[in-house]
């Protein structure tokens, strides 16, 4: 008996007017797998993420998380099924502290958020767990800083801390290394490396050194279509990768 895939996408389609952004995409990711999505700009990688999370509604096809059909489900339902993501364009609460940001991630699927009294920023239960999440991304001493006062690299790591705080089963990472200096890049790469092995991870990344070290399997997209899928060695060696991605 084969195990149930963590993420199973079949015949997924999305059109924006005359443009087909996602064309019959089928991808299966097994539990614990680390998958890399590559393709040139406009290939439909981030659109695919948005379809998986429910930020966009697919026109046709199926999205299953551990066998549960979620194409018509709300984002909230998908998150409750174990999905989390980071954004390529930072999507944080810039006027709040890092601890506050992570706490917002922690209470997303709990009832605490409905309490209309007490001090949110002084809750010991949240503070300890938030500290732990920040520690995992190397931001241990930064909890009390305001996001607007941190560096870009620190914000990238905060994105990761928030997604990790959600204790996801399936994690979508949208270019976690985008725009980072070499030093910051190493810090984030170390965080990626330390991700728990039982978390199924799908990564979009253009930094090939880090991305290839991270992923075992690679899916190549172009013009909204899956061109090629295989192990790291297979995809790197395939002439179509060179043709589509690296440019002839």
């Amino acid at each position: 008996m084969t195990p149930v895939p963590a993420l199973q996408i079949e015949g997924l389609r999305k059109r924006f007017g005359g443009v087909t952004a996602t064309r019959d995409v089928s991808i299966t990711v097994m539990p614990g797998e680390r998958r890399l999505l590559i393709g040139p700009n406009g290939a439909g990688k981030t659109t695919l993420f948005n379809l998986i999370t429910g930020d966009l509604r697919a026109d046709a096809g199926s999205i299953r998380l551990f066998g549960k059909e979620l194409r018509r489900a709300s984002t909230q339902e998908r998150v409750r099924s174990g999905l989390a993501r980071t954004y390529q364009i930072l999507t944080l609460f810039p006027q709040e502290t890092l601890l506050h940001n992570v706490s917002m991630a922690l209470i997303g699927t709990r009832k605490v958020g409905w309490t209309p009294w007490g001090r949110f920023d002084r809750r010991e239960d949240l503070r300890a767990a938030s500290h732990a999440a920040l520690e995992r991304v190397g931001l241990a001493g930064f909890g009390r800083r305001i996001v607007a006062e941190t560096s870009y690299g620190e914000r990238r790591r905060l994105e990761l801390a928030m997604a990790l705080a959600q204790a996801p089963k399936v994690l979508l990472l949208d270019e976690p290394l985008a725009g980072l200096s070499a030093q910051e890049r190493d810090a984030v790469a170390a965080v990626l490396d330390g991700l728990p092995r039982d978390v199924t991870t799908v990564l979009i990344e253009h930094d090939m050194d880090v991305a290839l070290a991270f992923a075992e399997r690679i899916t190549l997209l172009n013009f909204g279509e899956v061109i090629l899928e295989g192990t790291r060695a297979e995809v790197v060696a395939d002439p179509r990768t060179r043709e589509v991605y690296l440019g002839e």
Partner: protein
Amino acid sequence: MRAVMTGAGVAVFLAVLPWVLPGAFYVGIATHVLVFATLALSLNILIGYGGMSSLGHAVYLGVPSYAYAWLTANAGFGVASAAISAVALGTVLAAFFGVLALRASGLGFLMITLALGQIVWGLSYRWVALTGGDNGLRATRPVMFGLDTSDPTVFYYVGAAVFAAVLLCLWQFAGSPFVACLRGTRDQPRRMRMLGHNVWLIRLAAFVAAGFWGSVAGVLYVWDYQFISPQTMSLQQSAEALLMVVLGGAGTLAGPVAGAAIITLVKTVASSYVDRWSSLLGFVFILVVMFMPQGLVPGFRRMARRRAA
């Protein structure tokens, strides 16, 4: 500790204010300020924390006022049961209107609240059998603990007690996990969804909370003015409430109170000296928007901080 000091300061200020003011007329105005400060604080939940601008909030001032006046006059309700029923009605109405208005956001939301407000206002004009139409309804001030509330100073203390209680509740509310989530839906709705929050339900809860506290202001209003007419629910009244929040500083507690005080004072005091008091109000508003776009309270706080630095 600072919070306790501030709270004590507010309590002392409210307690001694009638002794400082030059006469009963001004004590009456101070009571009006407290009524509108309560209304502005309730609207601030929507605007300040939720980022949702409403042009129909006077509904929650008017409907509970009508309900209270009608129930005490025609249904034999006592003070407490009429007040509770009026607040309950306003809150249920807010839940209903919230579901309708939250089909949209931003400008669409604003227009739906405006339209709903105008519908209720129109009903209050036309449904003469229930509302008395243009003539409005009369109500009497409640007799509490054998106090003579027809005396302006005595009634001021009733208003101040209610206002202080509302302020205490909203101060607790402001730092709560719920408001943290509400501010999250204002700043990053997409991220909030991705974190598992139900953005729509958080906004609806905020709308209901604003309706509830607005209804408390409504009961206070009908006690204070002892009269309710369609004018109380007009677009002008809703716009003034919005102006109070924005002028004083949305998202703070002191801001809406300051805004309510300024607008009520300009309306009642300045209007006896200046004919074009609404022009004066407009001028004040333009100045604030130009020099302190966040509102007076955050503006002065920033100035003080810069002075100290």
